[in-house]
């Protein structure tokens, strides 16, 4: 079952924990750099005729005779964009990879909704295939979970770049973009992330892999069926080929980590053997200490 009966209870616990750990540093209550109608004082500027006299600093005018307007930091709610990989590769073996990705999406969405942020979920494969529209309020968690339950990982191919392009064509307001994917993109994952980064999004990459992705444990004659393209490779797998495979896989993981470190992006890599709440807690602790 994707969302077991105690799922919401565990989400509530995560929400409380997130407040305790981040104290408003991660998702919610982020302040924009724009000044405007706010409560917290930011600075002063010269008065221009026609401006609202309510913001004139009368104390300074009384002391120095200067007409200065008080500026306040404008508070804006955060926009959280969850880009969920729905390609076939997420459905390997028992489908645990896609299940964990959806659970993580639901958990992060709940934490954001609880902080009055806006969230949106985009199901991606070769492009954006489906979207849960931008929404806010805790009561929207149930429709979101229904949306996630409906999703299937049956799309033929992963193209992060094309998905990001289609996402950006919708002119989303910049915010935090969380990528939930295995990042098995034959064109490479960097171009897609670059596009998001250049568009002013904060990025957090959650890369999931099945244990069979890391170690296929195949020996002898076999037909390797690519789950995304359906390509069949008839081969005889030797121990040495397996060693080479493991090396390439580790290299790929390291490339993702290096990319995220280079651009100061959040990065979480995990096997599907962990529970989603443990993984969220680990993410929160990692963000709190970074």
């Amino acid at each position, binding site marked *: 079952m994707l969302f077991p009966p105690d799922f919401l209870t565990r989400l509530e616990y995560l929400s409380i924990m997130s407040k305790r750990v981040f104290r408003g540093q991660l998702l919610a209550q982020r302040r924009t750099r724009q000044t405007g109608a706010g409560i917290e004082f930011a600075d002063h500027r010269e008065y221009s005729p026609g401006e609202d006299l309510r913001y004139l600093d009368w104390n300074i005018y009384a002391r120095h005779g200067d007409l200065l307007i008080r500026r306040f930091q404008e508070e804006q709610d955060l926009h959280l964009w969850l880009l969920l990989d729905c390609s076939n590769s997420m459905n390997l073996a028992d489908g645990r990879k896609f299940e964990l990705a959806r659970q993580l999406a639901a958990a992060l969405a709940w934490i954001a909704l609880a902080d009055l942020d806006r969230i949106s979920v985009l199901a991606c494969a070769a492009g954006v295939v489906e979207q849960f529209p931008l929404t806010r309020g805790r009561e929207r968690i149930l429709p979101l979970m229904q949306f996630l339950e409906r999703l299937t990982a049956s799309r033929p191919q992963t193209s992060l770049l094309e998905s990001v392009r289609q996402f950006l064509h919708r002119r989303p307001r910049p915010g935090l973009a969380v990528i939930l994917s295995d990042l098995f993109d034959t064109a490479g994952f960097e171009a897609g992330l670059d596009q998001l980064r250049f568009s002013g999004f904060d990025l957090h990459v959650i890369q999931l*892999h099945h244990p*069979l992705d890391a170690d296929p444990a195949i020996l002898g004659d*076999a*037909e390797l069926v690519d789950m995304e393209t359906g390509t069949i490779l*008839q081969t005889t797998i030797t121990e040495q*080929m397996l060693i080479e495979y493991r090396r390439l896989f580790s290299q790929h993981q390291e490339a993702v980590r290096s990319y995220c470190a280079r651009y100061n992006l959040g990065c979480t890599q995990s096997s599907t053997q962990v529970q989603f709440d443990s993984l969220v807690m680990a993410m929160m602790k990692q963000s709190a200490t970074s």
Partner: protein
Amino acid sequence: MTFLVPTALALAAFALPITVLYILKLRMRQVPVSSDLFWQQIFQARPPRSFWNRFRHPLSWLAQLLILLTIVAAAGDPRWLSDSPPHSLVLIIDVSASMQATEAGGQRLTLATNQAHRIINGLPPGSQAAVIAADHRAEVVCGMTDHIPDLLRAVSGIQPSAAPGSPELAIRAAAELLGQTPAGEIILLTDRCFDSPGLTDNPRLTILSIATPRSNIGITNCQSLRNPDDPLAAELLIAVTNSSPHIAEATLELRISGTLSSVLRLKLSPNESTTRSFPRVGPSGGIWQAELKNIRFSADSDASALPQDDTASATDALTIDNSAVAILPDAPRQRVLLVSPGSLFVQKVLEADPLTELTVLQQPPPDNAWPQDHTVVLHETIPRQLPGGPVIVLDPRNDCDAWNIRGTRENPLPAQSVETHPITRNFRLDDVLIPAASELEFTQQPRILAAAEDGLPLCCLLQRPQGQVVVIPLHLTQSDLAFRTVFPILMSNTLRWLAGHSDPTASALQAGQQTAVPLPLTAPATSIPNSLLRSPAGKLTRIPLVPDTAAPLSATALTGPLREAGLWLIEPNGSNAPPNADSTSAVPIAVNVASSMETDLRPRLSARMSPESPPKAVPAAGRPPWFWLCLATVLLLASEWFLYQRRWIT
């Protein structure tokens, strides 16, 4: 090479399906992967297999075909081609005691059986062979057959014997097995430790020797005996022989029923034999065990003249003749009731027997109240009805239920006696003056142990259900029998026999002998069909019992040949529990090697073929072809497994 089962070669047809399956191969297993991203990178350097690349490793296919080929060839039972035509062969394997001696390469019998295996495996196709195990008897362990596995099994199953060797009987049996076969051959695998000079004259016989001269010291005789004149006195006789060109030293330990009785240090010159006797006094018997220990050979002044053996390496090569056992039966006290009007000589003879507790009556007891556990000796006065139990009748003067007196015979001349019977052993009446003897008419036919010239019984045995009766109808008062030495011997023999302790010859047997053992039973013999015999090694065998018609509670067990040296035990009463030496009812039989011929481990008979030159039947490969084929199959399987794993791909 030829094949004994050529039809098995049809199995080679399996090569076709193997090839077809190898080419077509069953559908490969499909393994879904998230992405072939990494596999593609691997295959950029190493292309994946294609349909035509299925023969990329033809070695694997060839290995499979070779495996099939070797299995098919082995199933065909191939044989090495030989120049010699099929012929008939009888293998005689000497299993006598000396074959248990150790050579540099192992036990002689093991060397012989190994040699026999090689000969059998190298037989030309179509040959027939038989196997005979020979000591002083011959046992055909496998009759004429061309089935090699049976012959090999028979050779492997041959057991050593402690009996002396004498292969003449086996050679006669081999000749009968061969019959008139012109190509027949007899091969005797032996250590040549026997004296049969006529053997070498047999043109069909080839003697293969597997022995070299070895030093040995052993017990060549071990017997115990009670003194017939003094049943309380006993002696153990032990003969020890040094069959080596060296001086032999050894410790002879003697145990009686497990208790150390005597230790004697022996030093024997080359080829010297010594005989020692150990006395013992007392009514109790037991099992005497003699053992040679701490055997050491040292150089003799003449040893340098004997080039065949080296003193430094001389050891006692045969161990089974280092120990011997003998049985000394108990001499229990015997209650005797003498009923006599008065004969001092008879009374004194009975009193002189140390095992006798004598009671004397002048008249039979009133109302025929005879004591149950007594041997009754009746002199002259005979009751109308003889008492039950064992009875000795001397000089009967009146009738009874067993006989009627027909008269008196004057001066009967003693003519014959049964010397083999325990009563009349060491008993001769030739010089005894017999003026008169009663002529008895028996109601049942007696067994005559001594008789006069005209057939008049002078000593006879009546077998009754109530007990045995020994009748001596001589007129003692007129004869000088009572003054002669033979009279106490006769009375002692008769009393021992009636008590059931009369057989002094059973102290020890030579291995390989058969024996008939009288057994006391607790139930009638008809209800006990057989007894349990345990060999010294612990092997149990059921042996039949022959009931004694005269005595319902006794029977005879026929055992043998007893080929194992040591103490054999018979449980007489049909119990399923194996007998042991502590059992009171178990009857022991002592069996020893006791043969100076077997103790001497130096070959005496000339061999026709030296052990170094293999017989013509043995192939160069030393093993049958199927062995090598199976070995090749195993190697090919290992290769195919290696190829299957493809670990060699770099």
